[in-house]
């Protein structure tokens, strides 16, 4: 984020001096001629963007096509001749889709808040209280982050049966933090590290307790980190598939990804229109949320990878 701001500021300063080609962010780019730039940069970039976005366009267009157009090889498939809302109507009123949407929201929001709560305390404890062995705890948090759900779902399924949590939302709310907490803790540790320790020392001298310091000083300063961790955790739990597929069997408790994949496919007849509408509406909430917080999301993604 800072890089972006710096380069923007640099560009602005350069413009003011009337020689933008010498700003930092341009480097030696002014040596490259325009036609060469078009071929080497804009054309490949355009192809990348088209390929990356095409499936979304295809989802949207398929959701609006009447069956006759979907199952025909004639005409131009890239456009809709007679758009219809029939598939969306079927999805919203004849399937349990609204239930799935509600379940996904409940599970994602609850597990996100639970994870953020645990992670804030854990990250503060590891990064700032520095109790004996905190380094090893920090290391093991990072290792926990590397444990993939694909190797945990079988023993977790056995536990979920034993705990009588099978087919409940609670099973998901309790298991999602296993991949959310390591990630959020790791991210927040980085943010807490960047807050000057002097602030804390001042507060300690003024007689504040550690809990007061955490709530009154650290958390307000770490708001960007909290937003990053929250957005990231929310999208991760929204997208989760294997646990929801394994621990849930009744239609009314399913989440959107699992519901769309398992319930909208009936035998050999694929209702492509409704399937695509389901995929689109399941993707939109995260896409919209993401569009508001892109910078936070990207800094969360890159912050977690950079040490």
């Amino acid at each position, binding site marked *: 984020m800072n*890089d*972006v701001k710096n380069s923007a500021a640099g560009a602005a300063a350069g413009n003011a001096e009337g020689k933008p080609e010498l700003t930092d962010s341009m*480097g*030696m780019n002014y*040596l490259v001629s325009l036609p060469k730039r078009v071929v080497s940069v804009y054309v*490949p970039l355009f192809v*990348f*963007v088209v390929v*990356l*976005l095409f*499936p*979304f366009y*295809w*989802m949207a267009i398929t959701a609006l096509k009447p069956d006759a157009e979907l199952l025909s090889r004639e005409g131009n*498939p*890239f456009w809709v001749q007679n758009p219809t809302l029939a598939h969306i109507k079927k999805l919203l009123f004849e399937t349990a889709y609204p239930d799935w949407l509600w379940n996904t929201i409940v599970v994602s929001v609850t597990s996100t808040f639970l994870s953020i709560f*645990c992670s804030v*305390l*854990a990250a503060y*404890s*590891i990064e700032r*209280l*520095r*109790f004996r062995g905190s380094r090893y705890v920090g290391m093991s948090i990072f290792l926990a982050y590397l444990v993939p*759900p*694909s*190797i*945990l779902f*079988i*023993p977790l399924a056995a*536990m979920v*049966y034993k705990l009588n949590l099978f087919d409940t939302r609670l099973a998901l709310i*309790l298991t999602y*933090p*296993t991949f959310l*907490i*390591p990630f959020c803790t790791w991210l927040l540790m980085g943010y807490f590290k960047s807050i000057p320790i002097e602030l804390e020392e001042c507060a300690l001298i003024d007689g504040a307790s*550690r809990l007061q310091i955490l709530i009154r000083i650290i958390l307000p300063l770490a708001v960007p980190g909290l937003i990053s961790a929250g957005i990231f955790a929310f*999208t991760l739990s929204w997208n989760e*598939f*294997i646990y929801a597929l394994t621990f849930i069997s009744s239609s009314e408790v399913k989440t*959107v*990804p*699992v519901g769309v*994949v398992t319930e909208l496919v009936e035998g050999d007849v694929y209702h492509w229109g409704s*399937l*695509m509408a389901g*995929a*689109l509406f399941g*993707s939109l909430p*995260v*896409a919209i949320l*993401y569009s508001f917080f*892109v910078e936070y*999301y*990207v800094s969360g*993604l*890159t912050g977690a*990878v*950079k040490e």
Partner: protein
Amino acid sequence: MTVLAPHQTALSRALDNRTVLGLLFMLPAATLLLLFLTYPLGLGTYLGFTDTKIGRNGVWVGIENYQYLWGDAVTRLALFNTLFYTFVASIIKFALGLWLALLLNKHLPFKAFLRAIVLLPFIVPTALSAIAFWWIYDSQFSIISWALMRMGLIHEYIDFLGQPWAARFSTIAANIWRGVPFVAITLLAGLQTISPSFYEAASLDGASPWQQFRYVTLPLLTPIIAVVMTFSVLFTFTDFQLIYVLTRGGPLNSTHLMATLSFQRAISGGSLGEGAAIATAMVPFLLAAILISYFGLQRRAWQQGAADK
């Protein structure tokens, strides 16, 4: 008051102790992680040595599961598929991701907007974008086949998911589509930390663009490449959603990965023990990937003269 005072001071003294307070703060996270991550990790390993079925406790059978799986053609095929899938997809994701990162690092109009839309495939649920790919790969109404037919390149529709090798490459293509944005955006963050003055110096010394990339960009980017590729390999090796939605392992088990096979054996088939053994068999490969990148990273840091941290 005076009676309570010693008690209060004892409590507040305890709370001032870093270790006591530190452990207290760790408690919620540690409870959840130990209960639902560490314990299942151990339980999974144990289950792999038993003949547990769904709804029936198993008995210890030693390495019988592993012996059976070693002789099982489907498991061997799944191992081959997983390695092939991971290897091919990771290399192409790295190449395309690095290329896209270099493009996005250029001085562009709408840079922030471009970066935002490029990351879209990574943030939407994989299971749902896989459904879009399912339709794109449809044997009768595939848009790719339609376009190729129109261009006169093929004469009949391609059965993307119906033939073993076609299905392998189709699933790899979908995996690449989803993974490239992650690689590109994280590498872009690494590129932005490289000071432009290096390129200015190199270009004044007469370095060609390729030489600048080879001798400036690549060495400075290596640490972050190692981390990004470790994550990419981990995600790809343990992939489940894409295969489950697109092919369920078919045709003829040609796209089964270890994860989908363990799901099929454990949950659909009910043999928890056998499934757990397959899942546990993935661990050595994951550890190898992590260790290779860790030591690769260390060597690099040491070469660049970094002090011990």
